[in-house]
């Protein structure tokens, strides 16, 4: 009985050590350059949607741009700038039929001469029309964007997005 109590206490202690060690392994240190360009944009919602099976339906994808950054809208004011755009991943179970992008906000960059940009900042919503068969499926899409601050730009980036779709 005494041995079992000792064993239980040791087990608890070692489990704590293990949990701490595992936690350390998933938190990159600030100097650990795992990705020089962490995603400036993240999907806020939805994680899952339910739509009518075999019939096109619109869903809203809500994104967030990190504070202090902006990304070009779908129709940038300067031709050379990279537009924000969604595309379907080849492995997606669900078809992406149409996409409606929001209008961006105008932003002035510099003053002599000023450059007028059209950008998304904060939260923005892209509406997409999708079609799914009955049952549970995955909508796999990619968002391409290019983020900047007021003084510097990061290279273009494409992030994968997966949303659970249930066709009723």
């Amino acid at each position, binding site marked *: 009985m005494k041995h079992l109590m000792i064993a239980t206490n040791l087990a608890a202690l070692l489990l704590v050590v293990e949990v701490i060690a*595992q936690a350390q392994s998933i938190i990159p240190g600030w100097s*650990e350059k795992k990705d020089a360009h962490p995603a400036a944009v993240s999907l806020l919602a939805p994680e899952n949607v339910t739509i009518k099976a075999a019939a096109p339906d619109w869903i809203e994808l809500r994104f967030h741009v990190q504070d202090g950054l902006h990304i070009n809208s779908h129709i940038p004011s*300067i031709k050379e700038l990279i537009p924000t755009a969604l595309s379907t991943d080849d492995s997606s179970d669900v078809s992406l039929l149409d996409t409606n992008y929001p209008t961006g906000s105008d932003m002035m960059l510099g003053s002599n001469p000023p450059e007028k940009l059209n950008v998304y900042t904060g939260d923005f919503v892209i509406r997409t029309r999708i079609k799914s068969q009955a049952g549970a499926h995955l909508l796999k899409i990619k968002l391409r964007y290019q983020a900047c601050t007021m003084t510097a*730009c990061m290279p273009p980036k494409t992030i994968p997005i997966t949303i659970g779709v249930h066709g009723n």
Partner: protein
Amino acid sequence: MKRNTIVLVAVLFVLSTLAWAGWANFEYRKQAAEARMTASPEVELIPDPAGGPPQLTSPLVGKAAAPFTLETLDGKKISLADYKGKAVVVNFWATWCGPCRIETPWLIDLRNKYQSHGLEVLALSADDLDYGDKAKVAQEKQEIARSAAQLHMPYPVLINGASLSESYGGLDSLPTTFFIDRKGVIVAAQIGLSAKDELESKMKKALGE
């Protein structure tokens, strides 16, 4: 009693293995992070001795500029070594970079002002080039040429600047500019857009004025 001992030994063995695996994983990642930190010439914030805000600087300052040879848009090869004895401003830019469009006219003005002092600007495009697809790479080169013409760049425009990313500190943001003196040493560096005056003072530093 014997059964209890066997259970105790088995439990201790399993938990010791788990603890060892976790610790070994942590140590491995710590060492890998330290190795990366040593190898990666990232920028760092240096406190201003005058008490102002810290300045973003590059650990490449004070070191010899990494040699390179790149092609111009019309296929001519240009090396940093071709400018031996001159002060060189190596400006990484891209067609998709908004702040570069603000900075370029300043670079042009200052280059025209100091060219007779022995200064040259090299514009290194960091635009991706899809070398696996001839038609696409031709189109990408055209886009770089169009932007360079639109911005009236009078100095050499070199392509595939992103290939120098490792030797020039990662090029995580654009514009990124290095100011190289007549002996080939980087005397100043800049990430992002700053004031035209600051560009000028760094150019003068490269010229030794």
